[in-house]
C-alpha cells in the first residue's frame, strides 16, 4: 500500500503538470514542470521526502533502464546516420573536453580566490 500511495503522488503530480504545462506562457516540458513542482512542494514542506523515498530511489537507481528505448531509436535511422556519425562523435568528444575543463577550471579558480581573500 505504501508503494501504491507513493506512485499515486508521483503520477498525480505528473498528470496535473501535463494538463497545466501547455497553458503556461513559456514552453516548458511537463516532466520538467513536475520536477520543479515537486521541488517547491518539498521546499514548502507540503511533502516530506519519506512520502516518496522508496519508489523514487528504486526508479532513480534504474533510471538508465527507462532511457534504453529512446537510446535504441537510432537503429531505425542507420541510413541517415551512416554519413554523419564520425563528425558527431568528434563533436561530442571535443565539446566534452572543453565543457569539463572550463567548468572545472572556473570553479577551482573562484574557490581558490575566495579562500585567499
Amino acid at each position: 500500500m505504501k508503494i501504491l500511495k507513493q506512485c499515486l503522488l508521483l503520477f498525480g503530480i505528473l498528470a496535473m503538470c501535463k494538463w497545466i504545462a501547455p497553458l503556461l506562457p513559456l514552453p516548458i516540458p511537463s516532466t520538467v514542470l513536475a520536477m520543479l513542482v515537486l521541488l517547491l512542494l518539498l521546499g514548502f514542506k507540503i511533502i516530506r521526502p519519506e512520502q516518496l523515498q522508496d519508489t523514487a530511489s528504486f526508479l532513480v537507481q534504474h533510471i538508465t533502464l527507462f532511457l534504453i528505448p529512446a537510446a535504441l531509436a537510432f537503429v531505425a535511422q542507420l541510413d541517415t546516420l551512416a554519413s554523419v556519425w564520425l563528425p558527431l562523435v568528434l563533436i561530442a568528444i571535443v565539446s566534452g573536453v572543453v565543457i569539463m575543463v572550463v567548468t572545472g577550471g572556473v570553479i577551482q579558480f573562484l574557490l581558490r580566490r575566495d579562500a585567499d581573500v
Partner: protein
Amino acid sequence: MFNTITQAPEFGIFLTIGAYVLAYAIAKRVRVKGVNPMQLAIILGVIILVGLRIPYENYQHGGVWIAQLLGPASMGLVIPLYEKRQLFFRHARVILIGIFCGLVAGLCVTIPLLYVFDIPYELFGAVLAKNSTGPIALELVSLLEQPTYLVMLMVVISGLFGYTFGNQILNAVRIKHPVAKGIALGSCSHIVGTARAMENSPEEGAMGSLSILITGFMYLLVIPWIMTWLGI
C-alpha cells in the same frame, strides 16, 4: 509468425529489461573500467534488433511501456537535490558561474563544428542538448520539434566519454578540487559521469548529482534561445 511475436508489447518489455539485467550482470562480473550497464544494454539491444532484423516500430510497442517510467524517475532525481540544498547554497554563486561558463564555452566550439561538418539542421537540437541529462535532453528536443532518435545516443556518448576519460583530463589540467571535479563531471557527462565522481569520493558524487539538474535546467533555458538565434 516472427513478426507477430516481436510486435507484441511483451516482446519489447522483455527485450529491454532482459538486455539491462544481462548487461548489469556482465558489468559486475567483468569490472573493466569504462564498462557500464547502459552502454552494454544498448549494444545488446542493437545486436538483437539489427541481427534479427526486427523493425524498431515493432520493438517500440513494448518500449513505450518502459519509457513511460522516465517521468516518475526524473521526479525522483529532485529528492537528492532537495536533500543537498545546503551544499548548493554554500557554493551557489561559484557553481552557477562555473556551469554557465562551461555551457557557453561548449556552445562556442559545438556550433562552428556543426557548420564545418555540414550536419543536417534537424540534428542540431540533439547535438546541442547532449550534455544535459537524458530526460531533460529528450524533452528539450521534442520541445524544439526536432526528431528525437539521435539525442539519447549523443547523451550516452557524452556520458561514456566523461566516465572513461574524465579523471585523466581533469588531472592533466590540474583540476583537483573535489567541488570543481564533481561539478565538471556532472555538467559534461550527467548521470554516467556522476557515477565516476561517486567512485572518486562521496563529496564529488554529491556535487555531480547537484550539477546534473542545474546544468539540465540551464540547457532548457538557453538552447531554445540559441536555436531561434541560429534561425532554425
